[in-house]
């Protein structure tokens, strides 16, 4: 596996909306690098002929009928929101103004 670069960490931090200082970026490159290295030992396991799996249970086609079930009340739905207005979730400005 290619080494994790400082640019990779900055990119991931941006995607995850985590604001990292220059010092934190430097520290994270090292810490994440160690974690990736440890996990990488898994790649030594012999996996020839082993199907990749995405679910621990060998199930397919778990569906439900198209029948309406009660929704939450708007009050209950909005109860956990930091802010609400006009029965809607209020969120900070979406675009950064230039």
């Amino acid at each position, binding site marked *: 596996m290619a080494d994790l670069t400082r640019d990779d960490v900055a990119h991931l931090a941006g995607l995850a909306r985590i604001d990292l200082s220059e010092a934190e970026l430097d520290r994270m490159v090292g810490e994440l690098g160690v974690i990736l290295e440890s996990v990488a030992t898994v790649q030594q396991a012999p996996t020839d002929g082993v199907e990749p799996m995405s679910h621990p249970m060998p199930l397919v086609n778990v569906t439900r009928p*198209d029948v309406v079930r009660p929704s939450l009340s708007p009050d209950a739905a909005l109860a956990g929101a930091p802010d609400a207005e006009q029965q*809607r979730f209020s969120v900070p400005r979406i675009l950064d103004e230039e």
Partner: protein
Amino acid sequence: MSTTTGERTLGFDEALAAYDPAMGLEVHVELGTATKMFCGCPTEFGAEPNTQVCPVCLGLPGALPVVNAVAVESAIRIGLALNCSIASWCRFARKNYFYPDMPKNFQTSQYDEPIAFDGYLDVELEDGSVHRVEIERAHMEEDTGKSLHVGGSTGRIHGATHSLVDYNRAGIPLIEIVTKPILGTREKAPEVAKAYVSALRDLLKALEVSDVKMEQGSMRCDVNLSLAPSGSGALGTRTETKNVNSLRSVERAVRYEVGRHAAVLSGGGSITQETRHWHEDTGITTSGRVKSDAEDYRYFPEPDLVPVAPSVETVEALRATLPEPPAERRKRLQAEWGYSDLEMRDVLNAGLVDLIGETVAAGASPAAARKWWSGEVARRANTEGEDVPSYAARLGVTPAQVVELEGLVTGGRLNDSMARQAWEGVLDGEGTPTEVADARGLELVQDTGALEAAVDSVIAANPDVAEKIRGGKVQAVGALIGQVMKEMRGQADAATARQIILERLGQG
């Protein structure tokens, strides 16, 4: 950012002289299921904000999504109708992004394992030629919430201080249908794009999987377009114009982007691969200015959902439920009804096919069915801003009444102008055609004695005209027929009156 002034564009013909367009169309269609894709919340359009949400579609911790069986069936039927192969095993994936329209911070979609793939749809153009549009894939996903932007000018996202989100729509089943690059269309590119979306809409309507209302957003189109030097066979850099939501706009957006790309390229510039916003009012696109790193969705298989693995039997059972393809049905009906191409096109544009079909099935002649549903009713429906079928349904005017009206004409009780009056009465809510005819005293005089008397008196009053007709100027008879009809107060058959006049004047 101004939305009223576009960038420099080249004329369409000039652009095509130097470049070949390639298109790709992505259509999102909201399924008409009763509930959402992964939860039992209802999907009604226009409900009060956040009244159709639950822990699953709000992405609350610990919620477990379960796939809607009908949504999967609809997806398979759409795939089959588009001549696609159906995956025997496929999964959902998480498409990760941070945007408040998705409370989970990811959209559950299908990534590299679509339920349907490798199909085609043949679309017919105005000139009768057929263009085959190849389908790359049709996959299942879920719709997003709706944002209201506050504090800026007229609800725009730019300049807004904050946004208000309604998650009623979040989680409604969506099928995304993606074409392969559509090549070699040249000057027909805009028309092919429009015809494809139109044919797809007809197909989805016939499948009864969606109400496909572009104006309500239950069917939305993204237009990818690129240009390459004429004859090079290459593919240029593309732009993706989002949310082009009417048939006419699909055509206009293709035309606009062809002109814009050509102006950039011929000026020595290069096209930026980006999202463009379509502006319905001005007919132009503007840059969506999406940062390139925001396109990194880090897809991975959705661990909360198990794979979808339709059996061959399931797929074949669904194939058996497919309706006759709309294009074939149109051809068959046109032949059965004996309509000209123009008549059939008018009937299609007015949305009258089903209504005429029902009327013919109820016993009317195809000509009468077309005549009565496309005249006065169409005019009134148009004034009310409705289509004829829903207008007629609201008024309680039925195919059986058209049959009854035609019967009154063929049975000799009403002539054409009386039938029109009777039909107007029906539309005015005065009752059935027979009731209106009774109430308004509409009845052809069957007693030819009265008609003969009227003819004699008109001939006597117009000796000059009568002499001309005797002398062979048969076309002068029109003037006399008019007077006879007037004398009869319209209660006579004009053809019979003509016959009697000509007999009297030795021309019979």
